[in-house]
């Protein structure tokens, strides 16, 4: 097809890179033009991502060193956080647009950048990055450089946005997040016998998604939450769930809250509010989202206590799918092109 856009994936041998490939293999308007990997350079895609090896489109594909990057319309950055900044000039030269999935250019406050993303502080970008969440950003960014949100960050943002956008809650919020083992990427290692049957703390204070959430809520709603954010590790390969605890302001009713969520996400195919959940499986849950690009959101109010829950697949709605959704929107494609809307369960 003459009108396919040419796409590159930097860090294509990693987990998020693999998902970008997987989804784009069936995207009608995309040509996978370049896939980078250093240690796996020269290797066929299917040898690194066995789950892709039976797709006919994967047959000829091999990884190449990033230095050989060709001219492309869009480059997806799937490198470990801290890797892109020094390589951005290269990408900027050869890619019309860069969509970065890593955290490098999410924060704006220079102090926070220095603390959480020292490589970004050392190699600032020439042009500004837009921080883009398809459902919440007021416009589709025209910038050449776009940074997608963090996976646990965006799950939390979806959970909290309607509350702060409508000034329904006090500022103190506790967020308890749980994430599966692919969240650490292929690089992270743990003997599977030790992960199996475990549940453990990941980070109780100081996770770098904390300032991102604060910044995004402030940017999208004007309110600044007093946020507590702790993360835990699940023995599942995929999926994130966050439970966010807030307190309704006086005079706020459960119906106000419900309406706020409904309005925030109505017409958004990839953020879905679970209406009136009763049984446990009615709430957002991993098996209802894993394999899809959907984030599920629900709220449960009792008196002035509000609990908001989001579930999403960290590798899709938290990473590859979100980025492709962004690509679709900035390219004028159908927002849903190439994006799965059912979970692969049971």
């Amino acid at each position, binding site marked *: 097809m003459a009108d396919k856009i040419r796409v590159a994936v930097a860090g294509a041998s990693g987990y998020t890179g693999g998902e970008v490939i997987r989804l784009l293999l069936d995207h009608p308007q995309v040509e996978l033009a370049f896939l980078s990997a250093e240690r796996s350079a020269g290797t066929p895609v299917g040898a690194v991502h066995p789950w892709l090896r039976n797709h006919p489109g994967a047959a000829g594909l091999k990884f190449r060193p990033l230095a050989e990057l060709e001219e492309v319309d869009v480059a997806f950055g799937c490198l470990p*956080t801290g890797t892109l900044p020094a390589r951005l000039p290269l990408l900027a030269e050869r890619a019309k647009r860069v969509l970065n999935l890593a955290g490098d250019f999410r924060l704006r406050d220079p102090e926070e950048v220095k603390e959480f993303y020292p490589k970004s502080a050392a190699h600032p970008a020439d042009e500004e990055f837009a921080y883009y969440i398809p459902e919440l950003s007021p416009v589709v960014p025209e910038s050449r450089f776009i940074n997608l949100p963090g996976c646990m960050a965006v799950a939390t943002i979806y959970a909290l946005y309607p509350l702060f956008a409508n000034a329904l809650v006090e500022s103190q919020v506790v967020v308890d997040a749980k994430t599966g083992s692919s*969240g*650490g*990427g292929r690089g*992270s290692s743990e003997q599977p016998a030790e992960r199996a049957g475990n549940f453990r703390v990941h980070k109780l204070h*100081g996770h770098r998604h904390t300032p991102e959430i604060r910044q995004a809520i402030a940017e999208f709603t004007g309110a600044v939450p007093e946020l507590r954010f702790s993360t835990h590790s699940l023995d599942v390969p995929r999926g994130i769930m966050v439970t966010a605890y807030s307190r309704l302001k006086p005079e706020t009713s459960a119906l106000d809250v419900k309406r706020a969520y409904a309005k925030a996400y109505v017409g958004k195919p990839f953020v879905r509010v679970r209406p009136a959940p009763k049984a446990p499986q009615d709430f957002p849950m991993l098996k209802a989202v894993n394999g899809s690009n959907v984030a599920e959101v629900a709220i449960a109010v009792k008196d002035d206590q509000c609990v908001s829950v989001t579930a999403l697949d960290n590798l899709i709605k938290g990473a590859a799918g979100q980025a492709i959704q962004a690509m679709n929107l900035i390219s004028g494609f159908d927002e849903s092109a190439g994006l799965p809307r059912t979970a692969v369960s049971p």
Partner: protein
Amino acid sequence: MTTAIETPKCLVCDTEFEVQADWEKGEIAECAACGQEHEVVEKTDATVRVELAPEVEEDWGE
């Protein structure tokens, strides 16, 4: 093994340390009762002083 000198106490749970003869300044000693790490900051024939050991959190991938 305990020496005759005044034995320091755990700064967290107040349990007395068993001072080891081979302790040196800078040594990290764990309280046997609560596990708290202490740093030996002074060690002479007459005195042993400990302080809470500094805590450094490890970094751990996302």
